[in-house]
């Protein structure tokens, strides 16, 4: 079989685009897991609500007859959605997780699931069950693109990849270079000792939820600019992003980025070269294989069991 490099490149680009959305959501899973060892099942719903907040902002601007240039309007949407999602994430942590922090971890998993059902149904009651699309002015502005050799790059793809890159670099700087980042790393390593060193772990945890949720909301708007959205999108996207986080090594921030991009590319290649209906089977199959041979994920450290 001769391989058309142009098509291959196109599939990889498509994969990286959806993969960068997975990665943005996966970061929230992995950051929370790194600190609390909790699978925050409500995180997918934060992504979904972020997407709706973005849509709501754009529609709100329209309804108020505030006509901003498209980039500025998008900026407003991103700011509102990310801030809203950050508050929501902190609220979720405060209400549903903090009171149970000393309980068995599965109890927390159940409150996370219960909360996810509540959020999903609350949104369903507010906006209904039908699919919604972002205003055409925005989706159409991004639909064009340019050719780079045999590969067609749409502005939407460029924008998604660019913004995801900026956010990931920003997060890396935040975690590696700032006092807050240092406190987050210390709390993840050993919450008790970090507390003894004067780090307010509750505040660090709240910020971690806020940052992860804001990133998911950004992913939500990027998703909404490409696909139609409804109250149920958080389920599938959350599942995929969670898998991406584990693939990279859960608790590991570069791992979540790598896992997300890899999952996107594998899916796109599976859809392009094998079959569209079996692409998810391929993605899940690869996840299983990776974990069987590297049980702590691609970049996860092997932690020796403490006896």
């Amino acid at each position, binding site marked *: 079989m001769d391989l058309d490099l142009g098509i291959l490149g196109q599939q990889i680009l498509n994969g990286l685009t959806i993969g960068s959305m997975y990665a943005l959501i996966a970061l929230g899973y992995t950051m929370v897991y790194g600190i609390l060892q909790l699978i925050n099942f409500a995180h997918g719903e934060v992504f979904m609500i972020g997407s709706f907040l973005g849509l709501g902002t754009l529609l709100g601007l329209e309804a108020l007859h505030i006509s901003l240039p498209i980039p500025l309007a998008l900026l407003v949407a991103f700011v509102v959605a990310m801030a809203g999602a950050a508050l929501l994430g902190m609220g979720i942590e405060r209400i549903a997780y903090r009171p149970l922090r000393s309980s068995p971890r*599965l109890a927390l998993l159940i409150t996370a699931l219960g909360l996810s*059902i509540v959020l999903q149904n609350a949104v369903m*009651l507010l906006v209904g069950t039908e699919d919604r699309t972002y205003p055409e002015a925005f989706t159409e502005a991004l639909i064009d693109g340019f050719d780079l050799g045999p590969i067609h790059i749409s502005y939407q793809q460029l924008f998604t990849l660019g913004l995801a890159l900026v956010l990931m670099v920003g997060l890396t700087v935040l975690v590696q270079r700032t006092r807050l980042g240092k406190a987050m790393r210390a709390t993840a390593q050993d919450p008790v000792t970090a507390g003894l060193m004067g780090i307010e772990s509750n505040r660090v945890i709240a910020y971690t939820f806020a940052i992860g949720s804001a990133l998911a909301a950004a992913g939500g708007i990027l998703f909404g600019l490409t696909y139609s959205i409804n109250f149920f999108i958080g389920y599938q996207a959350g599942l995929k992003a969670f*898998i991406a986080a*584990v693939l990279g090594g859960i608790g590991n921030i570069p791992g979540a980025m790598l896992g997300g991009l890899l999952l996107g590319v594998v899916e796109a290649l599976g859809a392009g070269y094998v079959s569209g209906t079996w692409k*998810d089977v391929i993605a*899940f199959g690869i996840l299983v294989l990776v974990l069987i041979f590297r049980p702590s994920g691609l970049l996860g450290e092997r932690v020796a069991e403490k006896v």
Partner: protein
Amino acid sequence: MPGPLLRGKAAMAVVFAVVLLLPHILRFMPQSDYLMDVAITTAIYVTLAIGLNVTVGLAGLLDLGYIAFYGLGAYAAAIVIHGGAAQAAVSGGPGFWVALPVALAVAAIAGLAIGLPTLRLRGDYLAIVTLAFGQIAKLSENNWDWLTNGPQGMEVAKPLLFGAELRSPYVLYYIIAVIGIVTWACVRNLNNSAVGRAWVAIREDEIAAGAMGINVPKMKLLAFMTGAAFAGLAGAFFASKSGFISPPSFDFIETIIILAMVVLGGMGSLPGVILGGIILAILPEFLRSLPSILQMEGSFDITPYRMLIYGGAMVLIMFWRPEGLLPEAHRRRELHPNLAEGERKPVGHT
């Protein structure tokens, strides 16, 4: 006061009596067919909760793909009853009673197949691999048109007994009640045996259990297979009872609901998971009919808020009792060392 052993026996006798007499009580209620359907669904969920409790509650292996075994059992039964692959032109296989053990075997083998490669995995990594297996199973059921008829689903014949089709919900109820009771009895006996103690030891500390001479891989595989086998039985019953199966019945969310039953009732505690299963299976139906019970029909429609309340109830119950409604004694002591109603404090553990 009678001793706890006697109280336990008395409680069990009451539960048995209720299980056996339930159809005769529901028969006299309005909408008895609907109530029987709820009772049958509840019994299926309780069987599944008891099965998942073996894997998660006793052996401590978080299995997020549990519903796949239920689905495999259902499809295996459907194919046996059909007499071959869905789109092959055969029809009229050996029937429900042959399908039942086949479904059990298929699910148990699937449990072994998933258990073997995942022996090295721990905690959340195990959870995610089982989740992936569950998704693969569901997607295969959806895509493998030749075998399963894909998203259109498969028609399944009702169970036959002496040539008569068992359509009556009362008979179907007793079939699932027997399946549930057999599951309960097996798990109870395993739990009280060396196998059950080995599972609990592995759950508490895998390394220490291994050092004490427990064959950890063998016991883990046994836990996977036992849980899976009962899910397979329940799946075969579900297929034949509903007369139709399709992939959406075996979605990830179902695993989550069953897991919620186990955690809500009290992980590892058999009476607990049965109670958890009953509550979470009936709650949505109860909420559906609440307005008519309160004679407030028309003034307020609760249907859209049903799942909202359901999710909220899950959160609140966990706040109230994170160890579950009827926790295992051991776990209760761990969580409330000061409340140990006259029980000895655990030694060593803090």
